């Protein structure tokens, strides 16, 4: 933790990420305009009254971006956390018990990963819900497609941890399998798991926005950052603020998540530890 805080880039990223969260979740309470209420100002460029301008129907872009960010971040975090929890448990089981359980789990994972995930996400989201896709469906679908990736990483980590002598020692003392997984393996795999959460947050936000951009994600009248980019793409020349601001927010969030993840990785890298052999 101390090492993480000593890394300026990841510290800044963490602060910015918290600011984005405040903007998305607290902002709407404080901001005078709502995302789904028209204003009288139509196609206004950014000004003091509308810092991010307005669109051709009079929606305040900042209010829309707050709402879009809220939706996108919510989906990304739910996906990241759900996929990480499921992936970690399954991965730990596969990596610790090996043998048949491992083989079965790995085959399931292989089958899920055989299909391009965005295509499967589009099929599942659309076929199951038609045009009334809710954010929870999208989060569920994306999490379903993301856990195998976490499971693979955690499995590899747990496999190498499981051969370490302290795990053998615990077995020699008669600690139960559950005790070994909960007390020794999961705490020591926490680094890998934390990195997985941050990386997944970044990829989840990119997947969700891409899906919404293609029309299979969050649907109007609700909005998400991807949908905002999609609806404004023809306005790049005429009302660029509509297009640039939501895009920049996506970049900002994904960038923060990546830098936080990188910071965690560095803080945990054994090669940077103080132990040196001569």
């Amino acid at each position, binding site marked *: 933790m101390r090492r993480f805080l000593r890394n300026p880039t990841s510290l800044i990223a963490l602060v910015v990420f918290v600011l984005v969260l405040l903007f998305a979740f607290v902002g709407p309470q404080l901001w005078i305009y709502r995302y789904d209420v028209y204003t009288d100002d139509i196609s206004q460029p950014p000004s003091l009254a509308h810092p991010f301008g307005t669109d051709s129907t009079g929606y305040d872009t900042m209010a829309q971006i707050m709402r879009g960010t809220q939706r996108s971040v919510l989906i990304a975090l739910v996906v990241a956390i759900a996929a990480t929890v499921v992936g970690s448990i399954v991965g730990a089981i596969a990596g610790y018990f090996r043998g048949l359980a491992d083989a079965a789990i790995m085959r399931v994972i292989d089958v899920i990963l055989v299909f391009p995930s965005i295509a*499967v996400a589009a099929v599942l989201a659309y076929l199951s819900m038609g045009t009334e896709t809710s954010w929870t469906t999208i989060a569920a679908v994306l999490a379903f497609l993301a856990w195998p990736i976490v499971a693979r990483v955690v499995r590899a980590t747990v496999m190498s941890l499981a051969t370490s002598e302290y795990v053998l020692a615990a077995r020699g003392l008669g600690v139960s399998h559950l005790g070994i997984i909960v007390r020794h393996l999961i705490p020591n795999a926490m680094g890998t798991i934390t990195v997985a959460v941050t990386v997944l947050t970044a990829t989840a936000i990119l997947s969700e926005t*891409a899906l919404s951009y293609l029309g299979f994600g969050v649907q109007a009248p609700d909005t998400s950052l991807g949908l905002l980019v999609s609806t404004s793409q023809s306005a790049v020349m005429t009302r660029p603020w509509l297009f640039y601001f939501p895009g920049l927010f996506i970049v900002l969030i994904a960038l923060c998540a990546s830098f936080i993840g990188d910071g965690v990785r560095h803080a945990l890298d054994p090669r940077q530890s103080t132990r040196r052999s001569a």
Partner: protein
Amino acid sequence: MLRFAIRRFAIAAPMLFIASFVMFMMVAFSGDPMSRYRSMDPPPPPEAIASIERQLGLDQPVLVRYWNWLTGIFRGDFGASVANVDIGAELGARMLVSFRLIVLAVLIAAVVAIVVGVISAMRQSGAIDNVVSTLVFIALALPVFWVGVLLKYAAIEFNEAAGTTVFYTVGDGTSSGAAGLELVGFLALPTIVLVINQFASWSRYVRSSMIEVLSADYMRLARAKGLTKGRAVVRHGLRNALMPFVTIVALDFSALVGGAIVSESIFQWRGMGDLLLNGIRNLDVHVVMAWLLVFATATIVLNLLADLVYGVLDPRIRTA
């Protein structure tokens, strides 16, 4: 090596079979292809719906449908399409368009990733590495569709300034009969979009793999023999660092296809992406399944190839 190849193949073939089954069930149980007709206003007569259902084979139990579909595939019959197109013929034409793009993008992205990753690794934590790493992180955070749209409009302005169409921003070029060099104008923008989307994560991978190799004992021995740092990297480092990269390229195929779907959509190509998106919107079950089957096959074949290439590159597997 032969035994290794046979083993790998023996694992891959049933995978494809299982994948096709899972996919069929997933599509079959996730929605009613007839919902579009049922929700029409005024609703079509029930007999009409029943007749379409019979035509698409939806009145039969799902396992029978799967069996019919599977045996159909072996005869080259992908099933009936709601939109009344010959799925097999359509797939052929569109695969050419899409795979041309994907292969080109993979090659360029891999080369860029290797160059960027190796330079970063050799200058680890130096000024070059810091600048390159920051750029790579930004590229990692860029949404494909956003970059695509930006590039599209930048290209339109560029064309206007140049007074001639250098970059085509609409279509894949096959309908206008473009061939050879002309195709470059069509391929350029989507390829760039895909490369930006993909090279970043690959270059991180190459970088960390190269850093690991640089601290390996055999690199120290190579230098102790009298190779300069640069020559040691070229002669002993690259092959070791890039071996695992082969596997990563295959694993990331799925992400690349996602990027390709999006960029085809931005530039309005009639490729695989368009086929899938329309298939989903029309609830055209057999089109969607044919599409998924093509890419599942491609993924499995690619992973198989990656395993074999790895086996060729790594004597520890080859001579076993």
